[in-house]
């Protein structure tokens, strides 16, 4: 595949308000850098993430989508991330089944204390998605400029 050297992926990161968004704040506080292509959307809990949002992101041109939530057992709402875990497992498996690169989607549990993990995860994820190149299989040509 031809890779445009200047091309950088667009990454949408859904972060739960209580753990991962705070973890992202902490990586800011500690000045731990990660690529600017990562854009965070705040949701109350990982269980708020509707598969529709992920597909929508890919449609609109995202190249990778990552969900970050509290570690299982630590959910602010006690059970939210357990549901998110099942839903995402099934969705990702389905995307893989449809032949869509499974490396484009990811779930990571990041606590409010894991600023370093947040930055490291984002660096790693951006690298992985960059290696895959542009999202072609779930894009909507009408949404391309």
């Amino acid at each position, binding site marked *: 595949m031809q890779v445009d050297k200047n091309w950088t992926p667009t990454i949408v990161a859904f972060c739960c308000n209580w753990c991962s968004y705070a973890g992202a704040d902490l990586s800011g506080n500690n000045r731990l850098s990660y690529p600017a292509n990562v854009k965070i959307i705040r949701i109350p809990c990982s269980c708020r993430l509707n*598969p*529709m949002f992920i*597909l*929508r992101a*890919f*449609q609109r041109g995202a190249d990778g989508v990552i969900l970050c939530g509290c570690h*299982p*057992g630590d959910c602010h709402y006690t*059970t939210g991330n*357990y*549901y998110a*875990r*099942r*839903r*995402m*497992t*099934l*969705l*990702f*498996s*389905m*995307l*893989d*089944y*449809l*032949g*869509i*690169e*499974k*490396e484009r989607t*990811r*779930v990571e549990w990041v606590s409010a204390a894991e600023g370093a993990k947040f930055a490291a995860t984002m660096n790693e994820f951006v690298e992985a998605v960059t290696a895959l190149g542009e999202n072609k*299989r*779930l*894009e*909507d*040509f*009408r949404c391309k400029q």
Partner: protein
Amino acid sequence: MQAVIKKKAIELLESGTVNRVLGWKAGEFFYDLTPAVFTTPEQIEKDFVYSVFSGANMSKYLIDESKKEGKVAAFIKPCDGYSFVQLQKEHRIVRENIYAVGLACDGMCDMREIREAGIKGVTSVEEDGETLKIGTIYGEKTMAKKDALLERCVHCKSKKVVDCDEMIGENGEENRDCGRFDEVEKLEAMSPDERFAFWRSQLSRCIRCNACREVCPACSCVKCVFDNPNSGIAQKAAASDFEENNFHIIRAFHVAGRCTDCGECSRVCPEHIPLHLLNRKFIKDMNELYGFYQAGADFESKPPVMNYTTGDAEPSIVYARGGDK
């Protein structure tokens, strides 16, 4: 069988147990049987049909029928039975208003299979034990019934009617070893590129007629998200590859854990897209990851997507499972 069922239907009407009967009658052709409501014994005598083409799942029609005045009789085949129970669990049908007659079923046939066997100009199909006697304009032909079965009947998962008021014929058993996941496994073993190519070749034929949605007992929303302009994803016709994928992914996800694998989506698809393979993928994953689950097999259990255990597999298991590059 047809005679017994008709007799039962008339008996239920005449005894006043019910005031109408949900059954099948011939559509445009003798093999495209459509669900119909009968209110008099005369109608039943005249139009009621039960044949190897009575595949249509009756349970969805009960959502509306069970809310009308008086009791309705319904004939429930094993696969309809799972949807029947699932819909009761979802409070969609009023059980008290239904007299359910369970039917023992040994498989329904698919006209496509008969045609594909090279039999043309079919005018009638009669079941005769293991064989089908097929009348054509070129004379009578025969074919083994097992070769003409619907896909879902080839891999029949259960012959058990979960819930009914009485049975016609012997109630059967579940068969977990029915091989219904073989096709899914084949796909899983392909490379992602092959899988992508396969699904593009299938889903790109989708004309968004919504037949799969309309027939699906799990897709019984009062208003579908795809019809709701406020949902943000409403669409009438798929305008791009993405929308073709999107519709079927979301649909499969919305019925995950509630889909009983009745196979109606694939049966009615005019483009012959094997849609059941999407639902079965979810079912297979759920069975493997969270323990065997059959939607509609009981009245209490929670679907796996609405349940959890603290030790569930992480989503990263997807990277390790299934076919790889």
